């Protein structure tokens, strides 16, 4: 695609904001994500009329109304399907899908699976706040066991799905994770996702101040963050801790990770083209740090590109009269 290289005037982040008043709760992590997306758009020089934001239903799904690009706020969970249709009709459009943990992994889980498997060239951003916000706080498919909510007064007894592990399992070829408050990292991640051709999947840990406040505090809290996050950067060792004193390595004789001192010789070097490694990183849970960054990136031909390749050959006869007169016909004379 060439669209991203065309810039009319150099647009500022505010030029990607629509004239609509943003109506998320004060302090919602979505504000930071909106800001990061607008900054990424400006940095990438996206052409507004060629950019389409598509969403389903939920707090995150209000996103398109706040962008000055084209936008389609659709129905619950179905944004990947609608975005696929848009790309089939016009592969030149730069299409983003905004979704949440309920929208993308519960009601729309099937569509998410297939859009990733097909590798449609979309930028898919999943806001994960581990709760249903717009419907007032029910547990979601990413809520941890024990989550108390209006629909689980005794605590959830369901096992949560890991968004990134799901995406990898579905065959996604670009999987990344970031955090609403990690602005610089988030902007860089969004830009990486955008340059990837094919479906790119970015999970953003997002704080819901009203219904699930501080649910990621054990990862994002200032004090704990250095020990609770490991930044995956291609070609660099997987180190973490205040002074990068800890590292991850394969536990000898197993297919599992273990935490070792950074000085241990065999700390893993991140290879974003290594799918099994990405799967190990995506699934990390305490006491391990949560993996941030581009966990997996291995481009392949995108779906709509292959569709159009098939459309092109053989072009054949496009004469309607020839079609209607194909096979046996007979003449009735007056």
């Amino acid at each position, binding site marked *: 695609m060439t669209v991203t290289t065309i810039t009319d005037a150099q647009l500022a982040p505010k030029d990607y904001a629509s004239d609509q008043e943003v109506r998320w709760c004060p302090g919602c992590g979505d504000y930071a994500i909106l800001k990061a997306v607008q900054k990424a758009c400006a940095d990438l020089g996206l052409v507004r009329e060629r950019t389409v934001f598509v969403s389903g239903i939920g707090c995150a799904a209000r996103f398109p109304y706040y962008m000055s690009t084209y936008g389609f706020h659709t129905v619950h969970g*179905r944004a990947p*399907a609608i975005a696929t*249709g848009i790309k089939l009709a016009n592969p*030149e459009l730069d299409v983003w899908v905004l979704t949440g943990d309920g929208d993308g992994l519960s009601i729309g889980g099937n569509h998410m699976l297939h859009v990733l498997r097909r590798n449609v060239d979309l930028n898919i951003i999943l806001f994960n706040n581990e709760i249903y916000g717009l419907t007032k706080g029910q547990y979601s498919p990413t809520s941890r066991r024990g989550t108390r909510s209006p629909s689980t007064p005794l605590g959830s007894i369901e096992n949560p799905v890991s968004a990134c592990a799901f995406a990898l399992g579905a065959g996604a070829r670009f999987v990344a994770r970031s955090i609403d408050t990690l602005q610089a990292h988030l902007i860089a991640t969004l830009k990486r996702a955008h340059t990837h051709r094919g479906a790119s999947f970015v999970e953003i840990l997002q704080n819901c101040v009203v219904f699930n406040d501080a649910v990621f505090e054990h990862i994002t809290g200032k004090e704990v963050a250095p020990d609770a996050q490991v930044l995956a950067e291609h070609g660099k060792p997987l180190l973490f801790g205040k002074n990068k004193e800890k590292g991850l390595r394969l536990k000898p004789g197993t297919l599992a990770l273990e935490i070792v001192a950074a000085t241990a010789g065999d700390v893993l070097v991140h290879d974003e083209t290594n799918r099994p490694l990405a799967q190990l990183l995506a699934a990390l849970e305490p006491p391990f740090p949560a993996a941030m960054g581009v966990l997996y990136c291995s481009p392949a031909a995108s779906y709509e590109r292959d569709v159009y390749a098939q459309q092109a050959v053989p072009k054949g006869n496009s004469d309607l009269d020839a079609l209607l007169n194909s096979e046996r016909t007979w003449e009735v004379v007056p």
Partner: protein
Amino acid sequence: MATSAVSRSGRETRDSVVIRFAGDSGDGMQVTGSQFTLETALAGSDFSTFPDFPAEIRAPTGTTFGVSAFQIHFGGTDVMTPGDAVDVLVAMNPAALTVEVSDLKVGGTVIVDTAAFNERNLSKAGYAKNPLEDDSLARYQVLKFDITKLTADAVKPHGLSSREAHLCRNMWALGLLLWMYGHERTATVEWLNRKFAKKPVIAAANIAALNAGHAFGETAEMTEHMVGYVVPKATVQAGRYRTVSGTEGLAWGLVAGLRAAGIEKMVFAGYPITPASALLHTLANLRAYGVITFQAEDEIAASGAALGASYAGALGVTSSSGPGIALKTEMLGLAIATELPLIVIDSQRAGPSTGMPTKAEQSDLFQAVHGRNADAPLAVLAPASTADCFDIAIEAVRLATKYMTPVIVLSDGYLAHAAEPWRIPREADLPRFPVTYRTDPEGFHPFLRDAETLARPWVRPGTPQLEHRIGGLERDYDSGHISYDPDNHARMTKARADKIAGIANDIPLQHVSLGDDRGKLAVVGWGSTFGAIHQAVKIARDEGNDVAHIHVRYLSPFPRNLGELLKRYDRVLVPEMNNGQLVKLLRAEYLVDAEGFSKVTGKPFRVTDIVQRIRGGAPPPSEGSGLGGEAG
């Protein structure tokens, strides 16, 4: 067989004939029927066909639920239905005989393969005794041939395995039937050579079987009961003809509509479902015509992808049968709310739920007209015949793009597979209705309405300075922005309703298909029942009854003169293959005292069902008319 006379050629003349080929689903009965149809068409007869096959792909051989049948009705005048009762039944095994013989006329002909009537097959078909050896078939003329052996002898020089030779039996039977009605074999020979181009031995063996069956009729081996017939040619409008199935008609009509609208691409998104999949298969081969097909992960995604394509400026089309249409409901609501064109083809089948997937019904009318949350009007059309499918598909494209609305086309499992002769139109003679995409930013908002049609502008993403946001949330009439204002919602609800209602001013007035535009009785139908109703009304009129046939192709909105027209008849009778749906819409809309007449057996109406009802009698009991015959 209506009349009989002996022609100079020694053949007897028949006005029209109904033949049914029946056998195991692996016996090639559909192919046999299709080839007989082609030869019939080339011989100049009018015809109508009805393939009736089981839902099971390959049911165990010899079982009654594995019987596959193909019926053709052909003749010189006004053949509009596949025929009520069968003149000639070809039964390739005992199961086919037991399932199909009840539809054979008294005195009709049964042709059987005696080799298939062995103990094993008889027992699978539930026969305690061989019906060929007792008097249970005494009411019919039974022609018993060892088709298996005759075929094996014919193909012997080609060195086939016995299994391969067995598969040529249908061509032997076809050859015999072609001889009986004086049809040529040329097109079938050509077809066999084409189909088995890579297996010339198989082609040659099938042709040998075909020729042997034909020669069998021609030579001394004929029995006293077996004579040849002549069926007159039909007198039809001059022009070039072909056979067309409803599926082909819809597929080609969509392509014609795409071109008439001047839209570059059609995105057709479907999900496999009987009996709608054939449309996906047909369109998948029309890439050269700007068609992109997409097999989605489910019905919801299929409708979503089609809507996304329309949003992006292509023609979005999706297709399914009743249970799948139910899943598309939510997306139809979004298409109505965002006012985007979307075409939905529903090949109706018997239900509810999975129902009878291969059997036709007209029971999705309520679903199409009203089956959505909230006040969600859209346009609904129904083709009256396989040939009409082409015109209806073009009309669906015109209305969807002109009014920026979803349009549901109600086909059914019968129309999808049935075939008729079709006078091929020329593209130059087809209507043109080029769409305009909005490009002017001056005074733009996404829900500005055209003063005449009330349609909003169609804007393709990619158009500079027209960037805008749309969605399922209610929007302000004057700005298009999200609005929860109570008065605005009332105004928007009315605008959506008025837009669809206004289509009534842009479609033909309802005409009377047969009979006077006033009188004692109007028989009002819709969809694939056209032929049966038409023939029945014709017969009843010939008997002196004051009755007319009205067939409604536009079901939402109705043609604007329909209510006034119906009120000019003393009685209105509405035959439908459902439990009374159009009848309720008509009563609700026009306060006419319409009477329902339901048939829900999964089979099309027979002409006699309707004739008897017009005469005032109950329908014949053999088929029944389903419950709720008096539904009002």
